[in-house]
């Protein structure tokens, strides 16, 4: 899930080297904190949150497969 989120974020940002994901594992939920370069926050969120929503949807699909709930936090 971590690798998946990293890959999705790297695909949309200008500075892929600045992409970093930290994982906080809970019993039912996994919190994935996505760190990107400050200038890339807009890229990860997109107009009206379109990109962020798409990223969350894909990560959730992966989480469901593992029987978990995933929460993606975007941090600049």
């Amino acid at each position: 899930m971590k690798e998946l989120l990293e890959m999705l974020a790297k695909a949309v940002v200008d500075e892929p080297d600045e992409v970093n994901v930290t994982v906080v594992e809970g019993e039912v939920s996994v919190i994935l904190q996505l760190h990107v370069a400050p200038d890339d926050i807009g890229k990860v969120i997109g107009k009206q949150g379109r990109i962020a929503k798409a990223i969350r949807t894909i990560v959730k699909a992966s989480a469901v497969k593992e029987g978990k709930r995933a929460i993606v936090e975007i941090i600049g």
Partner: protein
Amino acid sequence: MVREIETEGNSVEEAIKAALVELGADRDSVEIEVLEEGSRGFLGISAAKARVRVSVAEGSSQPAATFVKELIDKLGASGDVDVSEDSETININITGPNAGLLIGKRGETLAAIQTITGVVLRKNNIKKKLVLDVEDYRKRRAESLTEIAISAAEKALSIGRPVVLQPMNSFERRLVHLALQDNDEVITISEGEEPSRQVRVAPR
């Protein structure tokens, strides 16, 4: 399609790196021709820049196909990625045993994958329209939406009242509007807020 650029740098290596960044390609997929070796000169005197010509031979769909394959892999799914393109559209169809996972509820995962893949294309300066499909889900959904639209119109006319369809995303609502645009007896209106926006089919 071949994209070709010429770049300069203080060394051949630097010039190549600049070209790769500009093309968004990796070294294995390009052809490099050194035009000028360049020289440091002596204490900066008579120093000459290195120049290279770098070309990348690819269908414009290549970055998208590579991305989709990697994404499927990272999702822990397996599937074949079939790509075709014409002058306006890139079609990517995924087939395999994990179709359900890749489609998601009401096609939402499929739509999300298409959104991100679209960003990848635009980052590579490709302006073609992208249509991503899993096991012809969109095609089948389009057919059934057309049927739903037509039967909703028939029902609206027979009961003389509007029929409101289930919530749909913009792509699906558009298909309903299109299916009934030539029907002079009904009008179609989208109403409500996302994600529960619905099409109302009403007698004229």
